[in-house]
């Protein structure tokens, strides 16, 4: 395992080393110690490697990740895994605002709670939150899945496009154009798969979740809907 001490070396040196891991490499196990809330840790990685960050991270950890599995053994600051393309990011603690924002692929697992705007403008990422998610989560979410084992805050899924939201607990309120939808067979399979991949097997059952999606009434601008905007 390669160990990188952010207390002794710079963020630039860390990310340069990680970016150099192109194509085939046998340096597949990395450990980052002393992160101390630094920003942009392991941003822009594009290799099938396993990176463990031992501590909490600042903004944009694992931003635009491709292929890598990144584990945060602490909590994550705003915008963790923003615009992730592929790979997996697993956070043992809580995540701040905008977790998984605009993510286009891959899997983001938050074992604690996620703050507001989780999954904002997401474009294909899957997000599993073991705890609760904050207000305005999934705002303008375009595609992908969000699975919440706890509760959701206000205005869930406001101005939602085609993303699917599954919530096990309560939803404080739904945003504009977001409605509850029927759980059909394919949705139970999606939830089952997300529970398994999101390291939440045994914590909940697919039949305990309710599904929320777009009513698709705001897809085309209509003056009669002006009060909804």
């Amino acid at each position, binding site marked *: 395992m390669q160990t990188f001490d952010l207390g002794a070396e710079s963020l630039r040196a860390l990310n340069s080393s990680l970016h150099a891991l192109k194509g085939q490499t046998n340096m597949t196990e990395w450990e980052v110690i002393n992160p101390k809330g630094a920003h*942009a840790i392991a*941003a822009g990685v*594009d290799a099938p490697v396993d990176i463990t960050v031992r501590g909490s991270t600042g*903004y944009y950890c694992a931003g635009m990740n491709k292929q890598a599995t990144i584990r945060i053994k602490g909590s994550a600051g705003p915008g963790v895994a923003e615009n992730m393309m592929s790979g997996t990011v697993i956070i043992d603690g809580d995540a701040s605002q905008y977790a998984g924002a605009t993510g286009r692929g891959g899997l983001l697992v938050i074992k604690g709670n996620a703050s507001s705007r989780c999954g*904002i*403008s997401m474009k294909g990422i899957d997000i599993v939150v073991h705890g609760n998610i904050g207000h305005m989560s999934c705002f303008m979410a*375009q595609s992908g899945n969000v699975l919440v084992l706890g509760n959701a805050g206000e205005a869930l899924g406001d*101005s939602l496009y085609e993303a699917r939201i599954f919530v096990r607990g309560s939803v404080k309120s739904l945003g504009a154009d977001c409605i509850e939808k029927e759980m059909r067979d394919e949705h139970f399979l999606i939830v089952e798969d997300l529970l398994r991949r999101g390291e939440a097997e045994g914590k909940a059952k697919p039949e305990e979740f309710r599904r929320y999606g777009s009513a698709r009434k705001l*897809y085309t601008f209509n003056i009669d809907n002006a009060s909804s905007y």
Partner: protein
Amino acid sequence: MSDFPRTPPRYSATFTPAVNAEIRRAAATGIYDIRGGGTKRHLPHFDDLLFLGASISRYPLEGYREKCATDVWLGTRHAKNPIHLDIPITIAGMSFGALSGPAKEALGRGATAAGTSTTTGDGGMTEEERGHSKTLVYQYLPSRYGMNPDDLRRADAIEIVVGQGAKPGGGGMLLGQKISDRVANMRNLPKGIDQRSACRHPDWTGPDDLEIKILELREITNWEKPIYVKVGGARPYYDTALAVKAGADVVVLDGMQGGTAATQDVFIEHVGMPILACIPQAVKALQDLGMHRRVQLIVSGGIRSGADVAKAMALGADAVSIGTAALIALGDNDPRWEEEYQKLGTTADAYDDWHEGKDPAGITTQDPELSKRFDPVLGGRRLKNYLKVMTLEAQTIARACGKNHLHNLEPEDLCSLTIEAAAMAGVPLAGTNWIPGKNGGF
């Protein structure tokens, strides 16, 4: 009937026929007017400024003989690979989606042939554009449509768009009729639905966050790319200062005349400031921070000729950017399509419903039949010619002012025809040494 003369009909200066027509249109439809084309009202502009050519107190350079350089470096503050352009006139961001693929190709061809850069737009980077642009600026927008690290790395610079002149504080909407399969796929949304472009970034707010966002983008691209921050002209002193504080290499400032983007007419005409009023404030902010020329300033909004380029640079800009003028150079609003403009209820040189995708010139459309009308090779050649003419015009003026580089133009080379423009530009009213507002004015 009396034989006394009658009072002739008199139109109101407040309720003009145009105002009344808009009231009737609003009453009939219940919805505001949406259009492109930037503000159409009269504004203080570069036309209100004149150059003071050299005579006895200064001597000119010989046209066609003595050198007047035009090149510009952009992104020298932090980027490992700053951009070097032959001319200080760049092509502004316009999206694939708003424009056809061949139109984006033509912008790349023309800009490259003229030695300058072009810019992506909302909707991501297309192969047509990357392939034909030697220097391509990749916009990082609130919608993040098509955003990915590979395109970030194959861009030559990154432009974080906070706002634009047509609508500072506003987002956008690409109407469903322009959402073809390809556009829908690039944006990860269903075909045919209206697509919102958000007015705020999804994962940062304010200058402190912006600083961290810039750090992230630099880390992802190994600190190689210049990072621009684009703002709409509203509070240029503070926005420029905050962009510099956040770590920008280049500030792009777009006045309210900027206008390929479609939005509400009321927004276009009533929000923001003319570029003439914006430049001196932005330059002052850079000077106050000791960053003038170290952080470069690109200005846009109503740039049409080499005279406009020279005036913007004399006020302190490092380069300018064109959008509407580039589309017109490609062939948009050309009288050759007058019959079709008439069918759309408009006329050549007044067509501004680019968002509807029915552009007779085949430039601002995704309609395959209309797009076929546009030849990207010819369009690129026309754009190159236009850029060359603008450059020659700016050089002509600079030589007349005794300058051997466009960057040596200065406010002292200018005077103003109006009090308003004198106050905004900070140059004297013609024939006087009076700069309204300076030395304790209003």
